[in-house]
C-alpha cells in the first residue's frame, strides 16, 4: 500500500451514490402503495383469475421487492460489490430452501 494507492482508493469511493431526488423517492413509494393495493384487490378476485392468480401475485411481489432494494437501498446506484454480498445470501437462501421444500414434496402437494 502506497500513498498513491490510497489516493486512488479515495477516488473510487465515488462508486457510492446517493440515488434519486426526494420527489423521485416519493414517486417510488406511491408506486409501491399502488402495487400493494392491486395485490390486495387480486386476493379478493382469486376465483375469477384462476391459475393466473398465483403467478400474478408473485410477479407483483417481485416488483415491490426489487423496487425497494434497487431504489430505496440504492443498489442501482451503488457499487456492484454491495449487491453481490446481498445476492449471494439471497440466492443461497432460495437454492437451499427450494431444495428443502422440494425434498418435502411441497410443490407436488
Amino acid at each position: 500500500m502506497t500513498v498513491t494507492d490510497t489516493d486512488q482508493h479515495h477516488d473510487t469511493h465515488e462508486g457510492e451514490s446517493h440515488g434519486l431526488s426526494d420527489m423521485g423517492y416519493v414517486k417510488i413509494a406511491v408506486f409501491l402503495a399502488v402495487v400493494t393495493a392491486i395485490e390486495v384487490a387480486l386476493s379478493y378476485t382469486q376465483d375469477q383469475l384462476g391459475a393466473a392468480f398465483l403467478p400474478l401475485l408473485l410477479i407483483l411481489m417481485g416488483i415491490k421487492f426489487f423496487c425497494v432494494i434497487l431504489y430505496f437501498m440504492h443498489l442501482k446506484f451503488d457499487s456492484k460489490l454491495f449487491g453481490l454480498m446481498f445476492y449471494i445470501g439471497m440466492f443461497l437462501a432460495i437454492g437451499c430452501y427450494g431444495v428443502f421444500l422440494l425434498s418435502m414434496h411441497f410443490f407436488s402437494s
Partner: protein
Amino acid sequence: MADTAVAPATGHDAHDDHGAHHTSTGLSNNKLAMWMFLGSECLLFGGLISTYMLYRGRHSENLGPDQVWDIPFTSASSFVLLMSSLTMVLAVSSAHRKDDRNTKVWLMVTALLGALFVAGQVYEFTTFYREGLGFTTSLFSSSFYTLTGFHGVHVTVGIIMLTSLVGMIGKNRVPGDKAETVELFGLYWHFVDVVWILIFTLVYLIPA
C-alpha cells in the same frame, strides 16, 4: 518502503473531511459488512418462511389462515411499514445534505411508523390468541408466530436503533461519517420492509 510506512497513518479506515474511507476496495467497510449481514439475514428469514409454507396447512378445521386473517387490517399495517421506508430514505437524503434537523425529524417519523406497525402486530396476535390460536395450537400457528414474531423483533430493534440515533445526532455524538451511519441504519430498516413484502404476499395473500 517509506511510502508503506506513511500510508497507515492516513490510510485504512481513516476519514478525511468528507468522511470518505480509504480501504482496499475503495468502498466503505461498514457498508460492505452491513450488506453481508443482510445477505445472511436472507438465510434466516428464508428458513422461517419456507417452514411456514410447509406447515401452513397443518391446523384444525376452524383455526386456519382463511378463518383468522384480517386482510384489510394487515394491508393497512403493510402500508404503514411501506411508508416508513419512504421516511427513512428521506432521512438518508437529508443526512447527505448535512441537514441535521430534517434528518432527526424523518428518523423520528420512521420510528413512529415502525411503532405503529408493531402495535398493529401486537393487536393482531392478541386477537388470534383470543380466538384460540395459541403458539402451540398447531404446526401452522407455531410457524406463523415464529416467522412474524422474528420480523416484529427486527422492527422493534430497528425502532430502538433509530431513536438512539436521533439522540446521538442531537448530542453530536455520531462517530465517523454521520450520513453513512444514517444510511447503514436505513439499509437495515429497508431490509425489514423487504422481508415484510415477502411475508405479506406469501403468508397473508396466498390462500393455504
